[in-house]
């Protein structure tokens, strides 16, 4: 069998340049799309603020009752922790595992698979664009919360730089693990129990519910060896806490390690998932 002599295909732009171009184009698209829904986005972010404000009020009250601090953490620390929390939490919103089912059921995956680019690239690029809008919307919200709760925040330039990198690291880390979990949707439409279990573990072991130093020692030890805190507690602590340069560097390195582990797991799961999809169809 030989290749048919047909009309020539269009030439192809260089690989690296094309990849950068794809990411920038998709991010721009996401920003445009999100700007259409700026009011909805604001309401959404206000909704997101409810959770940390509750935690903040609880911990501030406890601190006040215990003479101004809980295990050495002052009300000002809690205020800073939970205000930064709001940004980290929003950065952590990625293409969630349960949405893979919708993607398969509605045929979007089939559409994505006939294109010469892995759908993970689109997810990363699209949500990254959304984050640009999130950060812009977060700034006035953070100012408002700061006026009410009076946070204590005095980061060094290095801490600000590490934080700026770590929130994107957190984004990538969570993308990898949520995408890997999402592969379950290729085998079952009842993955919700596993997704919920994962979310519960994440809630307890990430620093989302409580700053990790307030958890029992054994919980802190376990959480150190799991990916959750590197997508949540570490980015917050890099800005709010008092980590040494070595701890900041180690935190970024562990984040990178978990991103690579997540990517590896995703690749393995994807290969099986796509084999299954090709066998049984959408």
């Amino acid at each position, binding site marked *: 069998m*030989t290749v048919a002599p047909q009309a020539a295909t269009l030439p192809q732009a260089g690989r690296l340049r094309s990849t950068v171009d794809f990411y920038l184009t998709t991010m721009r698209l996401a920003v445009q799309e999100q700007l259409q829904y700026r009011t909805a986005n604001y309401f959404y972010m206000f909704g997101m603020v409810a959770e940390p404000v509750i935690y903040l009020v609880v911990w501030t009250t406890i601190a006040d009752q215990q003479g101004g601090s809980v295990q050495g953490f002052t009300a000002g620390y809690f205020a800073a922790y939970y205000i930064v929390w709001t940004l980290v939490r929003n950065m952590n919103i990625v293409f969630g595992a349960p949405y893979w089912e919708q993607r398969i059921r509605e*045929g979007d995956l089939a559409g994505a698979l006939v294109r*010469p680019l892995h759908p993970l690239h689109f997810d990363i690029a699209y949500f990254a664009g959304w984050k640009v809008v999130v950060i812009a919307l977060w700034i006035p919200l953070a100012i408002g919360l700061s006026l009410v709760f009076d946070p204590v925040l005095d980061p060094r330039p290095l801490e600000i730089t590490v934080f700026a990198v770590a929130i994107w690291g957190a984004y990538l880390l969570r993308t990898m693990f949520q995408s890997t979990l999402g592969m379950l949707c290729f085998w079952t439409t009842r993955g919700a129990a596993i997704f919920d279990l994962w979310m519960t573990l994440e809630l307890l072991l990430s620093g989302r519910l409580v700053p990790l130093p307030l958890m029992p020692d054994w919980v802190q030890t376990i959480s150190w060896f799991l990916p959750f805190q590197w997508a949540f507690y570490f980015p917050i602590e890099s800005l709010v806490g008092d980590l040494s340069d070595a701890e900041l560097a180690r935190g970024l390195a562990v984040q990178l390690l978990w991103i690579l582990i997540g990517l590896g797991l995703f690749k393995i799961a994807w290969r099986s998932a796509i084999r299954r999809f090709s066998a049984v*169809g959408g």
Partner: protein
Amino acid sequence: MEHAVHVSRLEKIFVVPEREAGLVAATKSLVRRKSREVRAVDGISFDITPGEIVGFLGPNGAGKTTTLKMLSGLLYPTGGEARILGHVPSKREKAFLRRITLVMGNRNQLQWDLPALDSYELNRAIYRIPRADFTPMRDELIELLDVGDLVRKPVRQLSLGERMKVEIVGALLHRPQVLFLDEPTIGLDVTMQKRIRSFVATYNERHGATVLLTSHYMADVQALCKRVIVIHHGRILFDGPLTGLADQFAAYKTIGVALEDGHIDLGRYGEVLHRDGDWITLRVPKAETSQVAARLLADQSVLDLTIEDTPIEDVIELVFAQEPPE
């Protein structure tokens, strides 16, 4: 002749779970699950030469979409071989995906909340099309489908037909050499169907693209396809010129006749299908057509007489009514 599409004994078997309705059956299925094999595509073979437009016909569930999905690399065949422009589709090589497109009617691939122009930009980046090539190609397609004002509106504000047109532009920006069109005119009004048909014909002429088209609208097939492949129960029933379909499957022709006295009973000449004033339509066995026509002319005072093949829709209905093979 070198082939753009080569399919040999292609097969797809699905294993589907099966159980009766009700609580007892549900409980039993906990212990013992039953399943059965469905041969969606059952050893089909055909070749398509470059630049050819082929109609791929069959009733719902015949295996058309499964075949198109195998040819576009979405489904892995259970057996047999497929090659598109020399590529094995199931390998899903990027070089292969850049040379094909799959358009499925009623499926939207464009960003819902944004104008189609923005989605085209995304496709440019995905297919790595240099801007110098992209802009003229995009403008050519927009002009051909006359969607200049539509591509600036958010996709969600477009009607079904308008959406299909802008969708097609997006699917062809990378100038694919093989087009798999799965019911591209489904749900569209007649004018919109015509527009898309003429577009496909023009694209085919200009770019020498090979087209495999499925449609339930025979007008699409008649307008575009000299050749049709009919698939039913996963097997190919017919592969040849559209005109040959009637020869193989339609055992009858229709004779229309206007008589001076329209009340005469013509039952002895053939089956009277209907009467419309003095105009009577008869169905007669194909082999006896000329004989019956001669008898009518000899016996009756005939004002006008026509002999017609069975309409293609009726032929297709006859084909689709075929029983599955044992």
